[in-house]
């Protein structure tokens, strides 16, 4: 496989749920070994895009490629190549950390010896080795999150998907978690595709950021590029400049849509 080829290639991706277009003609590439952040307000289409990339949802139209494979056609091959940490937890709380790791390894067909070696190494890396024999229900939120990420890496995936992995964590846990993810990205060269609501996190860890809003990509570039493009000092300001300040749970008014259309027009 050519290393200069992007590991993820998304072209003209569309996903409709009935009349609602959740993802509207989205195209982007993710390079190998980069940390790519997907930012956007609630309901912008982040999770829908992740679900399509991780084989959980069929696109309405457009093409997807992950490590040269089509997730819609080669579902199991793609699943083998990705690690996914979902928005909501997916650990078995009545099993120990080690057992959670082990079952994952079996599910992904990792041979016994390799499974045990990697599980031990990852638990060590994510500072969970001491508690590997404890039931997950005795773990704190931060520990559970770290365990999920460690588990997602057990089968040596090429891409690690993190869907709002720091939701509900305290600043210490968030900080620690990102340190681990960055280390892993540097040492193992695993590509990381993440979504988050915390701009400071994206600013700190991401090599490149795509901002998505109303199902469309409104900007893509490095954190510095996004800031300079919008004349903003912080990524938070850049984000608000790009996506508007309207609250997303309510339906957006016509005036706001006009403003937004104007903003997009000016940028081109």
């Amino acid at each position, binding site marked *: 496989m050519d290393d200069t080829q992007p590991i993820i290639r998304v072209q003209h991706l569309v996903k409709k749920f009935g009349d609602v277009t959740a993802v509207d003609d989205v195209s982007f590439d993710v390079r190998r070994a980069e940390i790519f952040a997907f930012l956007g307000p609630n309901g912008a289409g982040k999770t829908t895009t992740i679900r399509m990339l*991780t*084989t*959980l949802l069929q696109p309405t139209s457009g093409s997807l490629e992950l490590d040269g494979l089509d997730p819609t056609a080669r*579902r*199991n*091959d793609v*699943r*083998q190549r990705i690690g*996914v940490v*979902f928005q*909501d*937890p*997916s*650990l*078995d*709380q*009545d*099993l120990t950390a080690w*057992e959670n790791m*082990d*079952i*994952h390894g*079996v*599910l*992904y*067909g990792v041979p016994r010896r390799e499974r045990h070696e990697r599980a031990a190494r990852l638990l060590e890396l994510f500072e969970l080795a001491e508690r590997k024999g404890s039931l997950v229900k005795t773990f704190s939120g931060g520990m559970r999150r770290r365990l999920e990420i460690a588990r997602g890496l057990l089968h040596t995936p090429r891409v690690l998907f993190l869907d709002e992995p720091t939701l509900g964590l305290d600043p210490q846990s968030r900080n620690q978690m990102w340190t681990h993810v960055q280390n892993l990205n540097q040492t193992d060269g695993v590509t990381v595709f993440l979504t988050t609501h915390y701009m400071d996190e994206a600013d700190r860890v991401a090599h490149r950021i795509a901002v998505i809003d109303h199902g469309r990509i409104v900007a893509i570039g490095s954190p510095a590029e996004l800031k300079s493009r919008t004349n903003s000092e912080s990524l938070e300001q850049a984000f608000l400049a790009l996506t508007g300040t309207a609250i997303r749970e309510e339906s957006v008014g016509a005036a706001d849509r006009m403003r937004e259309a104007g903003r997009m027009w000016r940028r081109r």
Partner: protein
Amino acid sequence: MRVVFALWMREVRKYFRSPAQMLGTLGSPVMYLGVLGFGLGPIFRRAGEGSYLQFMAPGIMCMTILFTSTFSGMALLWDRQFGFLKETLVAPVPRLTIMLGRTVGGATVALFQGLLVFLVSLIAGFRPAHVLDVPTAILVMACVALVFSAMGTIIGSSLKEMQGFQIIMNFLVMPIFFLSGALYPLRNLPVALTVLTRLDPLTYGVDALRGVLIGDAHFGVGLDILALAIAATVLLILGAYRFSKIEV
């Protein structure tokens, strides 16, 4: 195969890890055996039917298996709520393997629980006709466990939330128990009850176990096992189908 084993092991491990639950679910069988067994015993004997405890003990073993296996099938709902279901469903393995591991694991746990009730009934005074019949009895219990574990999988795959639990309990599981002839002989019943009892798969489980343990089968053990096998096959196929339709 390895996946089936790992998921089976998960169920068994959890069972042995919670002795409180193990003993807690013994509550109602003990009550049925102790209170109903000895309370209705004199009347049953006066009616010329022999020992009620002997008669009902196999029924109570089946009841325990019914409850335990249905519940472990419905633990799917629990796993859905806490997310572990997603972890298994996005793995690069066929859904059928996952469904089989879970279902057979649930059946195994139910079998253990049935054996525990078997021990309890021995203490209460139940005596099988012959010691050599016990292995056959275990086989029958395993069949019953598989049938209802598959049923639990169907229910667990079809419900979205725990809210439906009470309805299932009152309108499916309890009727299956009460219509099975676990507590009364199948002879001379009103027509409606005769028909309903024959439609209940547990009837054949209770009858087979009674046939094997105390030599008192209404239909004959062969027919019973055939009925159980058919029920298991149909429910497993349905379970696999429902399980394949779960969306995460």
